[in-house]
C-alpha cells in the first residue's frame, strides 16, 4: 500500500462520491424525515410529526409476516440459484472452444432484455390456458393436469424465482468468468503434476483464487435481488392473496397506491435496517475485513 498522507485517493474518488452525495444522500435524508411524519400527498396541508405511527401501521398489517417470509425465500433461492448456475456456466466457458464467442454472446442475452419484457413473456409462457409450457408438457405426457404456475399460491413465488434466476445467470457468469481469467494456467499444470483430482483443483485453485469476487458479488447481488420488485409486480402483482408479495413490491405498491409517503418511507427504513443487518452478518461470516478489504 502506498502513500499514507497523499491527497490523491480523495481526488480520484471525488467524481464518484460527489455524484452519489448529491443524488442519493439528499433524497435519503428527506426520506428519513418522512418516515416519522404523516406525509400523505393527498393531504398536503396535514403534514406533521407523528412519531412511530407509520411504523406501527406497517407492522400491524396482517400480511406482514407472510411478506417477510416470502422475502427471505425469494432472496435465498434466487441468489443461490443464480450463483450456482452462473458458476457452472462460467466453468464450462473457461477454456476456449470453436464458436465460443458466438455462444457466449447468445447465452448472455437474457441479461440484455428489459425486465418487463422478460416478465410479460414468461407470464405468457407459463400461462395455464394458452401458454406453451403447459401445452408441451401435456402433449408430451409429462404431466396429466395443467400446472398453475402463477395462480397456485404454493407455486407463484417459485415461478417468479425461476424467471428471476434465468434472468440473472448471465450476470454471475460474466463476473465469475472475468475473475477466473486471471488465474495463471501454471497453477493447474503444477496441480496436475502433483496428481490432484478435479474437485481438489476446483476447490483449492479456482474457488479460492476468486473468493474475493465471489463474496463481493454475492453480497451486492443479494442486496439487489432483495430490492427488486418489477418481475413480481408484472407477473403476479404480489398475488394470489399476497403469496408472492415481498417487502420491496409491498413498499412499491404502498407508495404508489396510497400516495402515503410517510408509510412508504417507514417501510423503506425497515427495509434498509434489514439489509444492514444482513451485511453485518454476512461480513462477519465471510471474514470480510480479515480478507484485507479494508
Amino acid at each position: 500500500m502506498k502513500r499514507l498522507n497523499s491527497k490523491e485517493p480523495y481526488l480520484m474518488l471525488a467524481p464518484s462520491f460527489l455524484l452519489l452525495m448529491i443524488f442519493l444522500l439528499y433524497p435519503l435524508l428527506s426520506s428519513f424525515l418522512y418516515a416519522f411524519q404523516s406525509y400523505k400527498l393527498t393531504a398536503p396541508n396535514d403534514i406533521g410529526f407523528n412519531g412511530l405511527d407509520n411504523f406501527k401501521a406497517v407492522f400491524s398489517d396482517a400480511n406482514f409476516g407472510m411478506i417477510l417470509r416470502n422475502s427471505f425465500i425469494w432472496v435465498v433461492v434466487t441468489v443461490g440459484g443464480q450463483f450456482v448456475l452462473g458458476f457452472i456456466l462460467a466453468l464450462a466457458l473457461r477454456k476456449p472452444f470453436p464458436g465460443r464467442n458466438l455462444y457466449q454472446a447468445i447465452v448472455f442475452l437474457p441479461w440484455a432484455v428489459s425486465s418487463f419484457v422478460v416478465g410479460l413473456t414468461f407470464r405468457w409462457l407459463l400461462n395455464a390456458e394458452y401458454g406453451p409450457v403447459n401445452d408441451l408438457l401435456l402433449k408430451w405426457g409429462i404431466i396429466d393436469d395443467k400446472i398453475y404456475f402463477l395462480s397456485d399460491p404454493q407455486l407463484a413465488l417459485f415461478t417468479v424465482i425461476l424467471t428471476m434466476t434465468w434472468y440473472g445467470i448471465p450476470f454471475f457468469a460474466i463476473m465469475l468468468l472475468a475473475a477466473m481469467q486471471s488465474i495463471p494456467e501454471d497453477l493447474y499444470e503444477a496441480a496436475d503434476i502433483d496428481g490432484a483430482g478435479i474437485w481438489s483443483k476446483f476447490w483449492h485453485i479456482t474457488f479460492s483464487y476468486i473468493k474475493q469476487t465471489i463474496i463481493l458479488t454475492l453480497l451486492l447481488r443479494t442486496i439487489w435481488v432483495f430490492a427488486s420488485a418489477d418481475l413480481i409486480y408484472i407477473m403476479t402483482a404480489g398475488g394470489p392473496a399476497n403469496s408472492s408479495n415481498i417487502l420491496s413490491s409491498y413498499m412499491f405498491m404502498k407508495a404508489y397506491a396510497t400516495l402515503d409517503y410517510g408509510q412508504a418511507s417507514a417501510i423503506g427504513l425497515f427495509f434498509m435496517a434489514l439489509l444492514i443487518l444482513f451485511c453485518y452478518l454476512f461480513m462477519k461470516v465471510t471474514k470480510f475485513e480479515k480478507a484485507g478489504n479494508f
Partner: protein
Amino acid sequence: MSKKWAIGLLAGLMLVSSACSSSNSEGTNKENASGSPEGKKEEISFVDVSPSPERTKYFNEVIAAFEQANPNIKVKLETVPWDQAFNKLAMQGASKTMPDVVNMYPAWLNTFVPAGYLEPITSNYDAWSNKDKLTSFVSGITMEEQQRKVYNDIYYMPDALMSAALFVRKDWFEEANLPLPTTWDELFASAEKLTDSSKNRYGWAYRGARAGFDQIFAYITAVTGGETYEKDGTSVLHRPEALEAFVRFTDMYKKGYAPKDSINWGYQEMVQGFTSGVSGILNQTTEVIATAKASMPDESWTVIPYPKGDDGKRYIGASATWGYSVSADSKHKEAAWKFIEFLSTPDNNLKYSNTLTMIPIFKSGAEDATTKEGPMQGFIDTLDDPDSYLVADLGNFPELGEFRESIMDAEVQKYLLNNQSAEETLKKLGDFLTNAQQKYMKEHPEVPLPRVIKPDMK
C-alpha cells in the same frame, strides 16, 4: 499505448457528451426560436396516458389542426405507458413538473384534487359555447354529479364515454342451442352450460386480480338496487343479500365455470381469455371492441346489453373513459384550455370516439350513423333503455386507491382459495369501506352520498 488509451477514452467521452447536449439544446432551441419577439408563441405540453398507435395518430392530426388554427401555440405530445401513468403523474405533481394539459383518468380525481395538482376549470366550462350540445349524461352526471357536487369545481372535460356490456361467443351459443342471456340468472346458467373443460372452454371470463372485485360488486349492486352505502355511510356489503350475491357470483370460479388460472387474471388476461377462445362471456367496456375485431372473425362474437337483475332493472357502470385537465402548476393555463376546447368540439369528439370505439359526449355524436353501426349500438341502447340505472360509485375518499390496489382483490382471492369464509371476506371489505366513507362524510358533510342515477343520452 497509454496515449492511445487516453485519447480514445477522451474522444469517446466528448462524443457522447456532445451528442447528449445537442439533444438537449434541440429542445431548448426550439423554445427560443418560438419565443421570438413578434407574437407571443407559447408551447404547451400534453400527456396521453394510454398511448397506442391509433391514439398517437389521432392526437398528432388534431394537434396539427389546432396549431394551424392557433399559430401562436405549439403543442408537444408526450406519452407515458398506462401501467406507470398514475405513478408518473403523481411524481410530476409532487415535483411540480406536470404537463400543461393532462389526459386524466376520472378515478384519479380522488387523489389529485385534494393534493392540489389540478386547476379548476369551472369558469371556463360555464362560459363554454358547446356546453348545451352535450348529452345530458355528460352534463348532468359527469359534470354536475361527479364533479361540481363533490368538489365544488369542475376539474376535467370528459373525452368520451364508456359503459359496460357483455361480449359473447355467438357461435358457442348457437352450437349449444342456447338463447343469449338477458338477466343475471340466465347469465349464470349460460356460463355453466357453456363450460366444457375437455375442450378448454369456459363460460365466464373471470377477473380475479387487478380490480377484479369491481365485477363482483357490479352484481352485488344489482341486488341492492344500485346502492353502495346506507344513509349513514355503512357499506352495503354488510347486507345479507350482498353475501348471497357474492357467493353466487364467485361460485362461477369455485364451480369451475372459469379457468382455475383466472384467479390471477386482470384486464389484459380476461380480454385475452375471450379473444383467444377460452371464455365464452366477457363483461367489459366499449374500447375492447377494437381488440375483439382485430383478433376474432366477426361471425364468432357479438355484444349484447348488460344483464338485468331480478327486479327487471339494469344497474350498470358507465363513465367518462378519460378526460382533459389543466395542471395547477401550468404556466400557460389559457392556452391549455384553448387546446382542451379544440379537442372537445363535436367534430373532433366524434372522430375520436369512432376511432377508439367509445361513445361520444355530444347529442349529435350519439345520434350519428357512424357511431351507431355495429357493436356500439348495443352500448348506446343500454344507456337509453328506461330500465337502465347508473350504479352508485364507491365514494370519493382518498383511501380508495389503497382499497383498489392492495386490499379488495387479495381478500377475495383468500376466499377463492378457501383460506377465508365469505362472511369474513365481506366483513373485512365492508368495514374498510364503512370506516373510510364515514370519515369522509364527517369531513365533507356537503358532499352527497353516492347514489343511483338515471342516465340519459338525449
